[in-house]
């Protein structure tokens, strides 16, 4: 009987290790260990054994059952791992194939730059104002101390809606200064970006519609020193830390003193190159102390309050930042252009 068990052990283990799938393994389990299986068949002959042999054979049989079961389990483990590997292999993809399309839209590059600037000013306590583009000449010019005979008022320069030149398309965002002064409680810290219009034919650097950002601060004790400190900080935020600036006297009817802010050319470091037209400096914005006449005209006592203002062109800034060579690209809205930002 012992020999029979040894034979069974040998045969079953061999068969198990040779089995190639889980199903045949299950069949082997039934064949060897099932109710009608071979081991049971051997054990049925136990009755013929002596009382001394019986427990011994019982032990052997139990060991054999345990070994066959362990072998089946181990083999099962091996087979299922192999099966999984095979499946995964079959499921493999070519990772270099193109992805399923998910398209993220793009902000217009100019508004990218505008948002950057808005965030800088919001961080400094400024609010953002928005105003009409169809404007009274009174606000676009007169209240800004621009005299009636000023060339910019000519019909060759400004778009008008009325024969008496009363209503125009604003040529600058500066009328927003007047609107703010007339309607906002003091102190005021604001920027007002928006569309402006001038009678320029379209070319690589001109457009009859373009964008400006106006900025204004009115408070007690505001000085040119404050203007310089604030705008220096803004320019550093836009152009990077360590940007060298210079303030240069200029003329605007609604600020006095007036200045232009230049930055040292980042391309040549001030030596002079085509980017800065050999000057070593690049013009960034116009600014100045709000003319006391303008303050008074808007009902603000210039002996109590003072203020400063600035204006800058957005297109040129965006073109500089993204190295866009032609203004027309900004308004052409070619997808191939928009997708780049």
């Amino acid at each position, binding site marked *: 009987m012992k020999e029979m068990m040894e034979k069974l052990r040998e045969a079953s283990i061999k068969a198990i290790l040779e089995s190639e799938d889980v199903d045949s393994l299950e069949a082997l389990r039934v064949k060897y260990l099932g109710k009608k299986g071979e081991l049971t068949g051997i054990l049925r002959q136990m009755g013929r054994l002596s009382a001394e042999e019986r427990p011994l054979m019982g032990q052997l049989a139990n060991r054999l059952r345990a070994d066959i079961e362990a072998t089946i389990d181990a083999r099962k483990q091996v087979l299922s791992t192999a099966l999984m590997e095979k499946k995964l292999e079959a499921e493999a993809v070519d990772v270099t194939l193109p992805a399923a399309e998910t398209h993220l839209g793009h902000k217009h590059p100019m508004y990218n730059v505008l948002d950057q600037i808005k965030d800088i000013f919001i961080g400094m*306590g400024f609010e953002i104002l928005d105003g009409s*583009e169809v404007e009274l000449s009174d606000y676009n010019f007169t209240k800004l101390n621009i005299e009636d005979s000023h060339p910019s008022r000519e019909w060759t320069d400004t778009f008008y809606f009325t*024969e008496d030149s009363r*209503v125009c*398309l604003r040529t600058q965002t500066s009328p927003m200064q007047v609107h703010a002064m007339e309607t906002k409680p003091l102190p005021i810290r604001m920027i007002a970006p928006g569309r402006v219009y001038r009678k320029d034919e379209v070319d690589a650097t001109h457009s009859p519609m373009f964008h400006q950002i106006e900025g204004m601060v009115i408070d007690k004790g505001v000085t040119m*020193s404050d203007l310089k400190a604030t705008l220096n900080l803004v320019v550093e935020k836009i152009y990077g830390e360590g940007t060298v600036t210079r303030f240069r006297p200029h003329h605007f009817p609604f600020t006095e003193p007036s200045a232009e802010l230049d930055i040292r050319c980042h391309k040549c470091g001030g030596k002079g190159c085509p980017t800065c037209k050999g000057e070593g400096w690049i013009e960034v914005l116009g600014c100045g102390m709000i003319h006391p006449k303008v303050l008074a005209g808007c009902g603000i006592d210039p002996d109590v309050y003072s203020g400063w203002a600035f204006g800058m062109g957005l297109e040129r800034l965006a073109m500089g930042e993204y190295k866009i060579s032609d203004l027309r690209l900004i308004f052409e809205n*070619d997808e191939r252009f928009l997708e780049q930002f």
Partner: protein
Amino acid sequence: MKCSRKWLTEFVDLPVSEVGDRAFAEAMSVSGSKVESTEDLSLTMKNVKVGKVLSIERHPDSDHMWVCQIDIGEGNPVQICTGAQNVREGDLVPTALDGSLLPGGIEIKAKPLRGIPSDGMLCSFKELGMTQHDFPYAIEDGILILQGDYAPGDDMAVKLGLDDHVVDFEITPNRPDCLCMIGLARETAVTFGKKLELHEPVVAAKAGGSIADVAKIVIEDADLCPRYTARMVKNVKIAPSPEWMKERIRNAGMRPINNIVDITNYVMMEYGQPMHAFDFSCVGDGEIHVRRAKAGEVIRTLDGTERNLTTDMLCICDTEKPVAVAGVMGGENSEIVGDTAMVLFESACFNGPSIRRTATALGMRTDASSRFEKGLDMQNTLKAVERACELIELLGAGEVVPGVIDVVPEPFEETTLKLEPEKINELLGTEIDADAMKKILGDLGFTFEGDVVHVPSWRADVVHYSDLAEEVARFYGYNEIPTRFTGAISTCGGYTPLQQCERQVGEILRSVGLDEIITYSFISPSYYDKIRMPSDSPLRDSLKILNPLGEDTSIMRTTVLPSMLEILTRNYNFRNKAAALYEIGRIYLKREDGLSDEPKIVSIGMYGSDVDFFRLKGIVETLVSGITGKQMRFEAEKKNASYHPGRCARVYVQGKVVGVFGQIHPEVASEYGVDTELYCAELSFDTLFALHRELPVYTPLPKFPSVSRDIAVVCASDIPVGDLSACIMENGGPFLRECTVFDVYTGHHIAEGLKSVAFSLSMRADDRTMTDDDAESTVKSVLFALKERYNAVIR
């Protein structure tokens, strides 16, 4: 404004050797005279010498060339071959030697010509960058045979005055006083702390008689001419100007003509006062009348053009006819010509805006008009005419007649201001003491009586204490003003809810793949036809620009649709396979008061293989629910002529129309030349904002599972599924949470004119697990309502 550094040293001792171009430009720019560019003229011509022709022989291998031996003042003579026929032995000629540089960047090298070595080139005046006026005695198509003060070996660049540096200033319109050498010299002197040397003109006036005996000046329109000053010169000898004068005129960017014309230009550049010289024999009756033109008057100006004058144009006339357009250009009828003997010099002051309008209307902006239009110093006229006469005598160009006619209908009014140093310091944020301020202002020509400041006549731009502050700041140094934040920031910045909402609209649209565009606010009125806008639509009543650049940009848009269609079309024409775009753009709606309401419209536009009505609808839904968080309703829009009548919808939230979207009408698309389906949406940003989601309040998550039941009903095929869904939601009772359509079917087994619609109903109770009975009763009441209202029966 071009300024010769050499000429400048006549007024300020500041040679280029002391302050180079770069340092000069930097200092002048930061004191307010912006330098555009500087140019070292000597770099334009190099190694061109005066040579003397020692001998000249025929070229052995050419029938038109000559071989010259030229003495260039040093070493052995050089040999040069020339094809010119006007060179003779003994002539002095400009000789470009080997390795020389001519204007225009032309390099000359030694090279054999038909086998004979040539060490360079003999030059014509053109090759030297000069004109016939510079060398009236020379022939145009031959070698320049030099006359006068030239010797072999002289450097031609120096002889032509090219040993100079020219600075080009950008002068702001408030500073016409800087459009001349004296003005720039004053700025230079104060900038560099140098002394300004001015010259007082002296006129001998040795001719007999007096100007008053021969000429009479009447200012008829004093509002346009506050001062008219004149002097007379007789026995005029028209001749070329001396080299030094030609040189200065050239380096200032003008062309020498003859002594009289050059003198007027020279004085204009020196004093900033435009002058005019009349041939006095052509001034009828010897009378000058300064008046507006009469209707129909015509003048042929110096450029040979016939000009029709209008009654708002100021003219200089004799007793009958205009002889000049005041401040703009002289008339041919009184032009200085070769035999002019009597010259009247005009030095006048005219109303700036009037001159500007006249020049613009006549289309001739001249050096004179561009100065006059900025408003000139009326106290300058006399000095300028004196200087002109002094130069006449210096050049021997004629005899100055004693006396001056100086008509001043409107005497000069001096501006005085109070010097308030503390106010200036308060504005600037500085602590500059009063003496330092006075020093700066004094150097600029301001004078003082106690704390009263007298503004010099040439500074009409200074009228307010803030103007004085700018003068002080300019020379104290803008860049010396300390940078410090004054006081604490007392305002709270940030986006308003409206601005936040606008940003959110952009974020949502980009997240679904749309790119942002920026389009022009003005369009062509013909675009309304292009989008098939009904002829009686109130939106056709746009604000009209009276002076547009062109038809295409002549009215303010009342709809964003044409702008979007134009951009879609452009992308289509660029052969971009697909486009998905948005703009938050304004429309401009005419108001009673002549201004406009400018609401913002969310404009969406798409085309491409994966774009259809439902893709667009999905985007609209995402946007509207993202912003409002509210239920929306869609209704077919069949009447909007711009859209496909069967593929257009209006979207409502809480009964308000948010906007319209759908496929663009194929006829509109074909108007734009587009052969594919275009999809657009126009949504009111204001409405979206009005409906925008308030702060959300947390709803507890469900504790009990939900149950779902599918139903399919058959109904008339023209009943919108949206109506069925709404009916289901309304009649579903307390448990029904959601109803989704998952199939719409027509065809086999469904009778003609009917359709089958399948819904999935999701039900849940808040307080217990739902029973089958609960679900069955919900389905029952839904089916009952569908049958009642739409005759829709379960399939």
